[in-house]
């Protein structure tokens, strides 16, 4: 089978009767989902590195407040870091932009734009996405949003600095960087809407013959629910961004209350607005957004675990139903981010109940993944290491979220470093580890070569140690009551004195984590040209992208001929079968 597909790869290009595309149409303004996926991937990885760099500067200020930043300090403008010492305004910009870049320009585009684009059409047996032109437009909208966000650092007063949540009234009266943030968000929202429409249509319409709903790989289910979340949740932020833009540019007061006094002066606006309105609209998006960050990660981990345990996923159906239920529930938990706004006990009780309910499907999925390991002959490949690392890391992230979802404990914990520790465990050693698993797993499909396992192992173990070194102490610091937004890390507070020394520990861990990425970056570029050559199905996987398409898949149409699906996605170690994997397209 494998040899057959490779044979077709060698000779297949000849009959493709497509006119030769120009360089620009082939690699820049491409409409091929594979090229767009790679574009998304590289852009998103660059943004992740950039967002991480912003945080590394902040960590210097937190560990050694008031000392000039080494090396980088001299390149910063006087308005950002006077004499190399970071100014509070600049610290706020770094914080707001770190969050925005990591979430909206880094992880979502990587999880959905890159992996979704590249893998979904291949896994369902489709020649491309349903709307190739919209796909291209989606990438370029994202790119435009990214450029707008980056450019905002050079505006007078710098980039947005009201936190990644952009709460008014502060954001309404912030310098012009905030307007750029809003425009950037509008571009990103349009990009997401185009992408989500495209993904859902592709999955519903372009499944290969025989690819029934319950034969879809779990990764595709995860992407489908994710797309629905993007499609229906993002418009709320779109509305909010339009309203805040009106406040900032047309002088309205949607989010400005009457009688607001700023720096001792009454503001010119008429007032009559409601700052909490922004919070409702923002979190109506931003809570489903959390599941946008985690669901594709579940999908990748499920693929890698099934493949490397050589047995079917345990409870595939339960996982699918849990994912769909989780998608629905994520729309009615948003106000658990607002327990401290005084919305009343009835509302608080409602939202803390729904929050407890939504933890159930997440636990179902995680439990199913853990039980899937039971009794398997596990191959400890590099992607599997990252997938296995994901499980306890996400568990810590998820479980530490429960006390935040309960209104009484949230009163103590809200806005402390504990919150930062909680959601970073979900997103950093959780989602980002899953992303790494995905990169190591699908790299051979994209390039026809494998990444180095030695470098992969070094990358995994160093990252695993240092990432915990950053985030574990945050729980300690947070439980001591240290707030998350302190420019000096809490030097001025008596209650923080006992835990301040952790700041140095966390910062050194962060810089070591950055160094640990060097083997990965080297490995990624080196392996494109020099990696070990592999066939079309090096992992001996069952799903269509491995079993029916060459590596890399054919430029137009992916498959040598349209695959037909006759079985479920994870037929590993079927009793009586010739090999320990039976591809989805293979008759018994």
């Amino acid at each position: 089978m494998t040899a057959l597909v490779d044979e077709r790869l060698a000779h297949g290009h000849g009959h493709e009767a497509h006119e030769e595309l120009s360089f620009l149409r082939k690699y820049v303004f491409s409409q091929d989902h594979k090229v767009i996926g790679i574009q998304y991937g590289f852009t998103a990885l660059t943004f992740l590195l950039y967002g991480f760099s912003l945080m590394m500067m902040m960590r210097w200020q937190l560990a050694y407040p008031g000392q000039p930043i080494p090396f980088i300090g001299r390149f910063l403008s006087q308005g950002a870091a006077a004499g190399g010492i970071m100014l509070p305004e600049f610290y706020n910009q770094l914080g707001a932009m770190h969050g925005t870049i990591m979430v909206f320009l880094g992880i979502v585009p990587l999880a959905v734009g890159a992996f979704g684009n590249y893998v979904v059409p291949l896994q369902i047996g489709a020649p491309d996405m349903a709307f190739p032109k919209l796909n291209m437009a989606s990438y370029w909208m994202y790119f435009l949003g990214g450029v707008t966000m980056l450019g905002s650092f050079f505006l007078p007063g710098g980039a947005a600095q009201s936190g990644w949540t952009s709460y008014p009234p502060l954001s309404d009266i912030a310098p012009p960087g905030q307007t750029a943030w809003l425009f950037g968000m509008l571009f990103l929202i349009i990009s997401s809407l185009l992408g989500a429409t495209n993904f859902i249509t592709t999955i519903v319409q372009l499944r290969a013959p025989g690819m029934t709903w319950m034969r879809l790989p779990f990764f595709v289910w995860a992407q489908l629910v994710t797309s629905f979340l993007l499609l229906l949740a993002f418009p709320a932020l779109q509305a909010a961004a339009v309203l805040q833009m009106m406040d900032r540019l047309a002088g309205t007061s949607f989010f400005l209350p009457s009688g607001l006094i700023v720096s001792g002066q009454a503001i010119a606006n008429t007032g009559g607005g409601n700052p909490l309105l922004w919070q409702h609209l923002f979190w109506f998006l931003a809570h489903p957004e959390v599941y946008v960050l985690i669901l594709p990660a579940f999908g990748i981990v499920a693929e890698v675990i099934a493949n490397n345990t050589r047995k079917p996923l345990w409870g595939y159906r339960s996982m699918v139903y849990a994912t769909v239920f989780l998608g629905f529930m994520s729309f009615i938990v948003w106000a658990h981010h607002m327990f401290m706004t005084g919305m009343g006990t009835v509302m608080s009780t409602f939202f803390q109940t729904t929050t407890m309910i939504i933890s159930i499907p997440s636990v179902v999925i995680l439990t199913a993944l853990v039980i899937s390991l039971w009794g398997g002959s596990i191959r400890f490949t590099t992607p599997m290491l990252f997938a296995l690392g994901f499980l306890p890391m996400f568990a810590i992230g998820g479980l530490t979220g429960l006390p935040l979802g309960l209104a009484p404990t949230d009163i103590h914990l809200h806005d402390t470093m504990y919150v930062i520790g909680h959601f970073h465990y979900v997103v950093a050693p959780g989602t980002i580890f899953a992303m790494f698993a995905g990169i190591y797993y699908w790299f051979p499909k994209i390039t026809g070569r494998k990444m180095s396992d030695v470098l992969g192992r070094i990358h995994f173990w160093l990252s695993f140690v240092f990432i915990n070194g950053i985030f574990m102490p945050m729980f300690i610091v947070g439980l001591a009551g240290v707030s998350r937004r302190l420019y000096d890390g809490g030097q001025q507070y008596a209650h923080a004195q006992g835990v301040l020394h952790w700041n140095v520990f966390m910062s050194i861990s962060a810089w070591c984590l950055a160094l640990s990425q060097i083997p990965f970056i080297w490995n990624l570029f080196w392996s494109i040209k020099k990696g070990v050559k592999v066939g079309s199905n090096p992992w001996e996987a069952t799903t269509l992208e491995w079993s029916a398409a060459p590596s890399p898949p054919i430029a137009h149409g992916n498959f040598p001929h349209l695959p037909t699906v006759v079985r479920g996605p994870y037929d590993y170690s079927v009793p009586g079968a010739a090999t320990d994997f039976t591809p989805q397209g293979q008759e018994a």
Partner: protein
Amino acid sequence: MDIPYTVEPRPDTGVFNAKLGIWLFLASEVMLFGALFSSYILLRTGAPAWPHGRDEGLSVPLATLNTLILISSSVTMVMSWASLKLNEFKKYRLYMGLTILCGLGFMVIKSIEYSHKFETHHFPKTNTFLAIYFTLTGLHGLHVLGGMIVNGYFWGPGAKLFKKDPERFANRIEVAGLYWHFVDLVWIFLFPTLYLL
């Protein structure tokens, strides 16, 4: 390999790709306008006093006229699609042209309303009612404009597709029509909310 179901519907789902696509897009549009209407309700219930539209110079007769124009445009839009299905291209051109003219008429009346308000110093920043009025009608106006551009394209250069692939062209008009009806529907909600209540 070509992308399947661009023209004929997929048997088990019963729709062609673009039709599902536009319904999904409209679902997100419902959420967008839903969020704005919710904002309107929250702002209004939170305000100590809320002016009636006529106190702020809103003209009910003009808005009624606009409502009638938009509803007629929805009818002509359906007629243009039906003409294509009957293979009567000239009639299609006529009805599509009328749809675009209706859109234009709506925009002209809207701009008369806007300029009248600016002349009497009613701006978005004047009070919260006018702020939400200008935001909602402005955003709706942009949607009308977008629809007119799409329809204009299909009336003019885009109509060449009819000779090559009439089925596919009719599908495009159907999809454009679904969007146009949605824009119409938004106005049906905006009119009573802003002018009458």
